[in-house]
């Protein structure tokens, strides 16, 4: 059964329909890239998938492991294994990173019928995961995302992803605001989590991220629809001809 199946998805914010019938099927172990110009509906798609308030599905369905998630709240979807790496991670002043991460991990574990991790056990776990991603202990002690640089915020997202071990990871413009070195670190972190248990949807504007996170499929999103699907060479085509070239050809 497919990990994720998006069927003829129409969605709107307020009165404006942004997504006009999206179809996409992804299996576990696959990495799909969604590329598109500004305003094509990329971020909307990530919010609709993750169940953000204010994004209304008017037609179609989203299935995870064959089960519709449309009636589920954002937190239920998350506990089921959906993870969104934010384009702009949000600051939570005064909220200790350790407490936040542990609450998130335990919410997910509870859903899976696993025992909660105690404070001490979690500190050990978080430190070892952080170390692998090159995230310093000092960052774990700070309030969530407060005073983090752009690169730190993105790395922190990937750290959360590694701790939560999602079955479906949606990466929304994870490359934005990263310099070449930071891009490499973040991509390495993502690649380390590729595997048979996890499907990834990588949303990006630029091809350069896909040099590091090599996708199995590339979809071009334009005007709220997927206009073309191909393998990784499609991304190179975009790089060469621009979105306009692809869109017109389709």
């Amino acid at each position, binding site marked *: 059964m497919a990990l994720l199946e998006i069927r003829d998805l129409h969605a709107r914010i307020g009165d404006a329909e942004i997504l006009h019938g999206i179809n996409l099927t992804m299996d576990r172990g696959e990495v799909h890239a969604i590329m598109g110009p500004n305003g094509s509906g990329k971020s909307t798609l990530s919010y609709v998938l993750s169940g953000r308030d204010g994004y209304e599905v008017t037609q179609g369905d989203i299935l995870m492991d064959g089960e519709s998630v449309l009636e589920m709240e954002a*937190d239920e979807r998350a506990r089921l294994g959906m993870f969104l790496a934010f384009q702009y991670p949000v600051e939570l002043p*005064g909220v200790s990173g350790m407490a936040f991460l542990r609450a998130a991990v335990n919410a997910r574990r509870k859903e899976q019928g696993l025992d909660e991790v105690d404070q001490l056990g979690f500190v050990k776990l978080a430190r070892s995961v952080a170390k692998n991603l090159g995230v310093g202990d000092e960052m774990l002690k700070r309030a969530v995302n407060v005073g983090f640089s752009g690169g730190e915020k993105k790395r922190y997202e990937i750290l959360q992803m590694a701790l939560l071990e999602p079955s479906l990871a949606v990466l929304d413009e994870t490359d934005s605001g990263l310099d070449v070195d930071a891009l490499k670190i973040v991509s390495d972190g993502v690649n380390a989590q590729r595997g048979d248990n996890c499907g990834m949807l990588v949303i990006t504007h630029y091809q350069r991220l896909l040099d590091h996170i090599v996708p199995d499929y590339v979809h071009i999103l334009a005007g709220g629809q997927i206009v073309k699907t191909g393998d990784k060479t499609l991304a190179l085509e975009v790089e060469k001809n621009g979105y306009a070239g692809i869109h017109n050809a389709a």
Partner: protein
Amino acid sequence: MVATVETINQVEQATGSYKYGFVTDVEMEKAPKGLNEDIIRFISAKKDEPEWMLDWRLKAYRYWLKMPTPDWAKLNIPPIDYNDIYYYAAPKSAETPKSLDEVDPELLRTYEKLGIPLNEQKMLAGVAVDAVFDSVSVATTFREELAKAGVIFCPISEAIKTHPELVKKYIGSVVPVSDNYFSALNSAVFTDGSFVYIPKGVRCPMELSTYFRINEKNTGQFERTLIIAEDESYVSYLEGCTAPQRDENQLHAAVVELVAHHDAEIKYSTVQNWYPGDEEGKGGIYNFVTKRGACRGDRSKISWTQVETGSAITWKYPSCVLRGKDSVGEFYSVAVTNGAQQADTGTKMIHIGEGSSSTIISKGISAGKSQNTYRGLVEIHKGAENARNFTQCDSLLVGDKCGAHTVPYISSRNPTGKVEHEATTSRISEDQLFYCLQRGLDEEDAVSLIVNGFCKEVMKELPMEFAVEAQKLIGISLEGSVG
């Protein structure tokens, strides 16, 4: 999301979210309803008080009769019929508890249910408790151990008899009888409370704590607490409060006086969780409290930390009179209001001594259709050379039907004084909430986490044993507040 909140509301309505709302069924002895000189004589006789105490009470009563009710706070206070209240209610069994073995098991069970086991073996290590049930203290733990250190920790009704010289010297010396309407009322009818005396040079070996419980219907609780810290002594004291869930309003008018001598430090923490009333504002405690600390000695320090989540109406301004040279006053406050609650709370820092300094950190969180006001006075007297104050008032709004207000009064009569005031008002943003939800936290947990983050600077001032409880309490108080 709306659906989730609705379900939560339904469950709450069915079960009641205030988990301390139960009533203990014990036989009570009560004075007749109403307030007059005979009732005061009755209370005084019941407590077997000396003549001077009765005279003091009567004087207070006569003052009170002439005083108008204060109306300056941003509170809508329905008229209170002072003759429709019981001023004395005590469990019959509790008249003379000598040791824990003699305390009515029903009362011990009540405190156990409240999470305050009075059995010394089961208690939190290092915390001594005085348990006040309606008008009397029913048990005080660890007294012998404290006595070894020379610390006196007992019900004030007992101290009046056993240490009259201390009580006579200090009672009313920080909060005069005529200070305000509610302090005069309290002085006339107070029934019990805690008395603490820390001798010179002693660091109190454990946390002291008083747990106030209002149980009887139509009964007011008027407790009086007096803490004296002699030169170079230290004490940390915590009070907790709960009451049954009732449709009628109940009055709680307490007076707390603290005295710190040279180099002494008193840390006073409150976790106030009186029944707040229901969503529509029916029932709940009216909490009119006068708390004041006198930093009489040089380099003395008094620190107030309060977490206020309960009560239908809160009227409370724990203050410091900084008379000693280089004395220090601190006020750390979290006030959470939800439903139809109203809070008008803050502090007064009166700088009289040279080099005195004070810090005020106030965090107000309003949800539902509640109103939350910070009201604070910083006053620098003429002789207070180089006095300093730093004030920070932050308000957090949850939802769009509540109100947050900040009313600072600043008066400086010495040109060397330095006063800083910072204030912010913010909202829990939809971005923050979604970020937490996307990590799998449910809405209640997300709000609790964000609010506790907002209050962090204050929460870290609480004694460790109580910080966790207070964090949970803030979460519970805000349940059903996001829609």
